[in-house]
């Protein structure tokens, strides 16, 4: 159990002291926790502090009741971390890199080998496990960096935008991997791709301007916007009228015309029908003044 108590952090930015994180408290049990919020909401600041990569101005992070800064917690060995724009990996083979991470977390050589082979198969890199990491493309590196966070069986895994440079097929695959790995550990996942956390997250935390503004299961959050999401199919010429008057969450071309997904407290047009909300609708409604 990872318990966060009133952590705060400010930065100097644009010649002013800006609070990046106001007193933040939360208790994370096993499972996947999605962290959503606009750029600048404090997601990366929060995750860096939880990964002990950044010192908070105040507050405490406890793993099973012990401060993660105390040496006897052994936190670094119990933590898997993927920073945003992670990089700076050594120029070694994919397999050596994963084994190195596993051993550094206290895994034995045999465990390290077994773990790295299993995960290399999951991320479809087993056949090129002897290739140098430096020869991989950006998308391949991002798969490897995601995999390293699970090496050595850490109890807490912190992932800052792990799917940012993955293509849709890999993103779907990464989602499956994260959901599986979150069954018996705490996984915190910050992302801009709302659908990454929609299915598998136990809880979703919404941050805005350094403040935790809402949290709950994806279903609980989504239900809050029920009745505020509308579907309507219009002629292409009518689209500008709707985009000017309403918040449009999505558009798609269909046989009948253009299908709009509209966020509105009242029915936007007589023909509009209320549709089932999703987590992105909730996100768009609750991050405030839109477009």
């Amino acid at each position: 159990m990872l318990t966060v108590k009133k952590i705060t952090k400010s930065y100097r930015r644009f010649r002013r002291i800006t609070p990046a994180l106001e007193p933040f408290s939360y208790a994370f049990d096993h499972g996947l926790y999605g962290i959503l919020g606009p750029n600048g909401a404090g997601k990366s600041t929060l995750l860096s502090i939880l990964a002990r990569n950044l010192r908070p101005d105040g507050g405490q992070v406890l793993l099973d009741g012990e401060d993660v800064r105390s040496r006897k917690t052994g936190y670094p060995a119990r933590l898997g971390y993927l920073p945003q724009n992670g990089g700076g990996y050594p120029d070694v083979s994919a397999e050596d890199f994963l084994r190195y991470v596993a051993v550094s977390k206290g895994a034995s050589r045999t465990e390290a080998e077994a773990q790295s082979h299993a995960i290399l198969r999951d991320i479809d890199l087993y056949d090129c496990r002897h290739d140098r990491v430096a020869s991989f493309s950006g998308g391949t590196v991002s798969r490897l960096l995601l995999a390293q966070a699970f090496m050595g069986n850490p109890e807490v895994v912190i992932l800052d935008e792990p799917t940012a440079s993955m293509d849709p097929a890999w993103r779907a695959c990464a989602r499956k991997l994260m959901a599986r790995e979150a069954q018996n550990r705490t996984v915190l996942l910050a992302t801009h791709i709302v659908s990454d956390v929609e299915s598998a997250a136990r809880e979703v935390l919404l941050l805005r301007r350094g403040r935790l503004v809402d949290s709950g299961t994806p279903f609980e959050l989504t239900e809050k916007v029920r009745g505020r999401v509308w579907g309507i199919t219009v002629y292409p010429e009518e689209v500008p009228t709707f985009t000017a008057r309403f918040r449009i969450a999505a558009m798609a071309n269909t046989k009948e015309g253009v299908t709009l997904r509209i966020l509105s407290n009242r029915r936007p047009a007589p023909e509009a029908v209320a549709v089932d909300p999703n987590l992105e609708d909730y996100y768009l409604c609750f991050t405030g003044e839109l477009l």
Partner: protein
Amino acid sequence: MLTIRDLSKSYGSNLALNQFTYSFDHGIYALLGPNGSGKSTLMNIVTQNLKSDNGDILLDGTPIGKLGASYREKLGFMPQYPGMYPSFSALDFLRYMAVLKGLNKKKADEQIDELLHAVELHDVRTHRIGSFSGGMKQRLALAQSLLGDPEIVILDEPTAGLDPKQRIAIRNYIASVALNKTVIIATHVVSDVEFIAREAIMLKKGVISDSGSPYELTQKIEGQVWQTVVAAEEVQAMQEKFRVVNIQNGEQGVILRILSDVKPTEDSVTVVPSLEDYYLHVFGDIL
């Protein structure tokens, strides 16, 4: 009209682009494909940052090699990882780029003002780029690519790192400028181009595996996209049996979106296919 004929490029034994041929008119063209499918290679060749092994690129019938600098004047480019000077302000950066592009100062200043408003950076135009967040740099890079009102605009992952709200704003903005330009966008976020793209080009290992309007492409899998509601315990088993492209928690259980030729369960219903479904149909063999 930008015409590309038989463009090929290899890196050692790796054929990154294989006889790519396509004609681009006005409007937005989406380049879709996994990492390593040749999208960036193609963009780098079209922007003359990379030489092709063979093939031609013609602008209104004239090879771009012959057009020289006048081609580059008509070209705007937003690379995937734009390098920007951290000590410059946003305004200075755009002015500097305008000088490099050889724009008239007075006209450039007017346009810079407009662009800064459009990408919502006007309030921070005098701040150092070094103090900008990733999303702000991204929007500045987009503004830069539109300086001088180029006829051809090449955008490599323009919405990467943006939050959903900024993504919608940028998407609408790109759509509004694309009316009298050729805009080529490479992206992993299929929904960004689904509505605004005139045509989508599916690239697989350097070869066009399919292309057409988003509607034409999604029509090809009409009747193969299903939705079904299952209990939470059944999700894993369904994922092993079928290509599950989306999972959502619903009132009655877990809502699965499945790609399948056959009806996956008794109570499955077909849904309207999206461009992302089609993408996963073409590239989702790892699922």
